[in-house]
C-alpha cells in the first residue's frame, strides 16, 4: 500500500519497517560488550542510524519485556543515589546464542535478496 503511493525521489531512505523486524537482534547486539539501560540502547541506535530511524521507544520496551520473558536477557536496577533508578539489561548465554543465529540468518537472507534483486546480465 505504502509503496503504491510512494513518491520516487531516488534518494536512499531507511526502511523502518524492515529494521523493526530486527529489533530484538539489535537490542541483543548492543548488550554484547556491556550492560546498558534503556536510554543508552535507544541513543546508540539513533547514533548509529544517523537519527534516520524513526524508532518508537515503546518498540524497544516491548522487545526488552519479550527478551526477558524468554530468558535472552536479564534486568537489574542500578544503584543510582540521585533521581530515578536506572534499569540495566544484561545478555544471557542463550541471548548470545540467539544473537549469533539471527546474525547468520540475516547475512544469509541479505545475500539471497541481493541475488534476487540483481539485474539480469544479458
Amino acid at each position, binding site marked *: 500500500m505504502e509503496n503504491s503511493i510512494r513518491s520516487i525521489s531516488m534518494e536512499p531512505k531507511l526502511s523502518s519497517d524492515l529494521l523493526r523486524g530486527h529489533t530484538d537482534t539489535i537490542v541483543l547486539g548492543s548488550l554484547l560488550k556491556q550492560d546498558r*539501560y*534503556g*536510554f543508552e540502547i*535507544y*541513543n546508540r541506535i539513533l547514533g548509529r542510524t544517523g537519527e534516520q530511524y524513526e524508532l518508537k521507544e*515503546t518498540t524497544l520496551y516491548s522487545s526488552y519485556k519479550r527478551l526477558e520473558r524468554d530468558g535472552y536477557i536479564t534486568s537489574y536496577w542500578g544503584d*543510582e543515589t540521585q533521581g*530515578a533508578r*536506572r*534499569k540495566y539489561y544484561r545478555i544471557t548465554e542463550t541471548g548470545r546464542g540467539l544473537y549469533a543465529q539471527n546474525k547468520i540468518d540475516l547475512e544469509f537472507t541479505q545475500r539471497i535478496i541481493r541475488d534476487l534483486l540483481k539485474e539480469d546480465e544479458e
Partner: protein
Amino acid sequence: MNTRQQIEALFSGYEKSTELADFMEELESNLNDRVAFLKQKGLGGQEALDKALAELGDVSALADELSLKRKQEVISEMYMKTRNYISPPRMALYVALGALIGFGAIVGGVIAFGPAQGYDIAPAILGTLMIFCGGGILGLIFLGLTQETASKMAMPWKRALWYLLAAALVIFGLSVTAMVYVNYIYFDLAEAPYLSETLATLIPFFLPGAALGIFLILTEKDLSKPWVAKLRKEALESAHERFGSPVQQERFGLICGAIWIAAIAAFILLSITVGFKFSWLAFVAALVAQLLVQAAFSKDAAGGAKDGVARKQAQ
C-alpha cells in the same frame, strides 16, 4: 509538567501493578536522560520533553499488558486467599461446631436405631438433634455472619446476635412443632383436630423468629467489599451494552413483568377450568415468550450498533 507528572498522566487509567510501577520508574529515568541529552543539543525544556514523549510512542499496548496481569492477580488473590481471613481460634470454633453437629447426628442415629423403638423415642431424637445440631448450626450462623471474607466485610456482632435470636426461635419453634406432631400421633389422637393444633404451635416461636429474620434480611446493608461493588457495576454496564441502552433494558423488564403476570393469571384460570394437569404449561409459554423477546431486543441492539457504524462511515 515534569517527566514524573507526564508519566503519571500517561498511565492514569491503568491498574497500578508492581510491574507497571517498575516500568514507570524505568521510563522516568530514561526519559529524564533523553530530555537532558536533547537540552544539551540546544532544545528548550518543554520542547525537549515534548520530543522525548513523541519518541516514546504509544504506550497503551504495553500498559494494557502490564496492568492486565495485575487485574488477574488481584482477582485471583481475592478469591483464593479466603483462608487468610480465618484466624486460628475461629478455625478451631468452626471445627468444634462441625463436630458438635456430627455428634448430635450420631447420637440421634444411635437412639433411633437402638434397642428402644416406637414413637416414645421420637422426642429423645428430636431433643438431641435440637440441642446439638441446632446449637451447632446457630454457632455456624453467628460465625459465618461475623466472618470477613475476600468479597464481603464482617457483620457487626450485635446485629449478628439478632440473626442468632431469629434462627434460634425458628429452630426451637420447628422442633417444638415436630414434637407436638409426633406426640399426637403417638397418643393416637388422630381423631382430634391435631393438625391445626400442631400448626398453632408455630405461632409463639417460629413465627416471631421468621418475622425477625425477614425484617433483618430486608434491612440488611450491603456488606460487599468495594471491588465486588465495582465488578457488579461493570456487569451492569455490560448488560446495558447488550441491551443497547438503559431505556431498552427497562422496556425489556416491563415486557417480561407483563408476560409473567399474564402467565400467573393464565395458570390460575386454567387450574380452575382445565385442572393442574395442563395449567403449568402457562409458565412454559411465558418462558418461551421471554426468550423470544430477549432475542428480539438483542438483535435490536446489534442493529443499533450497526447503524451507528454506518453513520460514522457516512460522515
